[in-house]
């Protein structure tokens, strides 16, 4: 029983990270209909910058906040400089994929060049304490992470439903042309959207580094899981991203733990099989709207 609880929380911990990154992916997809393949690498890069600041003496919580801000700037600039030049929301999706893959490569290798390939140890955001839940020792870090995820979801909802910025973002997503005609500055709005997404992604980077160690390849697998989570949940649904992430985290952990054929090498497999099955039955994902699942 103890082992089961442990596994559940391990799964939730991983799943929460996937959920956060998936949320970032979904924000961009909803706002502009594109996938940002560099999302994970941006997160990795900002976490490295945070580590640099931490190494120079700043407290970890402060550098984590700094990484959020840097992430925001990177995301906004990425949209303004690259995506707009490709045609903004009318850009060919393939071109956007290629450009973001290009950015992925640059950031990944760039990080290796700047900071080397050794993994850097990074402090836990919420300290190293453990608490007992049903007999299993669960790291406070995990609880804290789940709390952050909850705050993120609530905050996201607040911003999107109750603020003018949120209204602008939703208007641009719903009908970009009319949004412009209503006086909404479309490019600025999308820049903010991409910036927010990147900032949220940075959180995923911070927590990934905390749970293992900070190294330049750490986000690659997380990105894949996050894509799977977004697919499972429905690409235009933020709730879907979060639920999808948690489910995939749980399923991966439990299947790998309890099904012997699937060893740790094939960790990705259960998640993907799940996604594939859901897609065959419900192409738009669990929470997605029909227009996402085009036959």
């Amino acid at each position, binding site marked *: 029983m103890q082992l089961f609880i442990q596994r559940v929380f391990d799964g939730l911990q991983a799943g929460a990270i996937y959920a956060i990154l998936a949320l970032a992916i979904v924000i961009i997809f909803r706002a502009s209909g594109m996938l940002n393949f560099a999302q994970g690498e941006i997160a990795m890069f900002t976490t490295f910058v945070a580590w640099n600041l931490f190494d120079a003496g700043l407290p970890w919580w402060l550098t984590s906040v700094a990484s959020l801000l840097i992430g925001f700037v990177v995301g906004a600039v990425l949209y303004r400089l690259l995506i707009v030049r490709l045609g903004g929301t009318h850009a060919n999706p393939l071109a956007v994929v290629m450009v973001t893959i290009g950015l992925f490569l640059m950031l990944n290798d760039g990080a290796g060049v700047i900071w080397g390939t050794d993994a850097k140890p990074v402090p836990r955001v919420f300290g190293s304490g453990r608490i007992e839940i049903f007999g299993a020792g669960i790291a406070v870090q995990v609880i804290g992470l789940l709390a952050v995820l909850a705050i993120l979801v609530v905050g996201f909802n607040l911003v999107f439903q109750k603020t003018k910025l949120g209204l602008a973002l939703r*208007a641009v997503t719903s009908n970009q042309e009319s949004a412009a005609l209503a*006086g909404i500055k479309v490019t600025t709005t999308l820049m903010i959207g991409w910036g927010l997404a990147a900032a949220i992604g940075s959180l995923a980077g911070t927590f990934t580094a905390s749970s293992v160690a900070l190294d330049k390849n750490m986000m690659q697998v997380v990105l894949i899981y996050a894509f799977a989570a977004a697919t499972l949940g429905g690409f235009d649904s933020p709730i879907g991203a979060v639920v999808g992430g948690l489910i995939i985290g749980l399923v991966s952990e439990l299947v790998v733990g309890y099904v012997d054929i699937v060893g740790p090498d094939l960790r990705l497999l259960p998640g993907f099989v799940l996604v594939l099955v859901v897609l065959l039955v419900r192409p738009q994902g669990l929470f997605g709207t029909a227009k996402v699942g085009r036959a």
Partner: protein
Amino acid sequence: MTLLAVQHLVAGYGPVQVLDGLDLSVEAGEIVVVLGANGAGKTTTLRALSGMIPAKGSVVLNGKEVIGRKPEDLVGMGVAHVPQGRGTFPDLTVAENLRVGGFTRPAAEVAEDMERWFDVFPRLRERIDQAAGSMSGGEQQMLAIARALMSRPALLLLDEPSLGLAPLVTRDVFERIAAVNAELGTTVLVVEQNANLALDIATRGYVLETGRIIAEGSADELRNDDVVRRAYLGV
């Protein structure tokens, strides 16, 4: 006072030039209609005026040159454009649609205006929390017009409001437009295929054919013009 002066407007899509030197003008307080068949360039005209497509020539609004501006600047210049097909925000509720319309205005005015437009278009108040995409064509048209009016424009551009609407509904829409013009003094430039209903509410009109104005006059003059009658009034 001339609110809008268009001279030698040239616009098109890539290698296809649709407007070939268009001239028209709109005085403050008027309802001006531009008649034309499909492909004549009606929608292109409005899109060029709004900056949605690149254009050459001169378009002066309230003394300021509009050519080269982006659509987002229009609202600030006092122009609201209701595009063809209504251009509502299908995923947003009626209330949210109106709030977007009033995006550039202070919150107090937005609240006040929403009330007013709900009075003018009671059907919208009934559906206040309904997603715009699920409403009927006529309701969406009312919503689109109300949304445009939320920005308190001096000039309202309407692109084929009758499109896809039943005749009775269309008549209703046009009556509201006339009412708004009468009460608020909002100048209206409407492009239409349905000449009958449009001429009923218009002060003046133009006839557009293959990218050029071929006739202009008061609503009565146009209604009695043989060419117009045969081509557009089905007489």
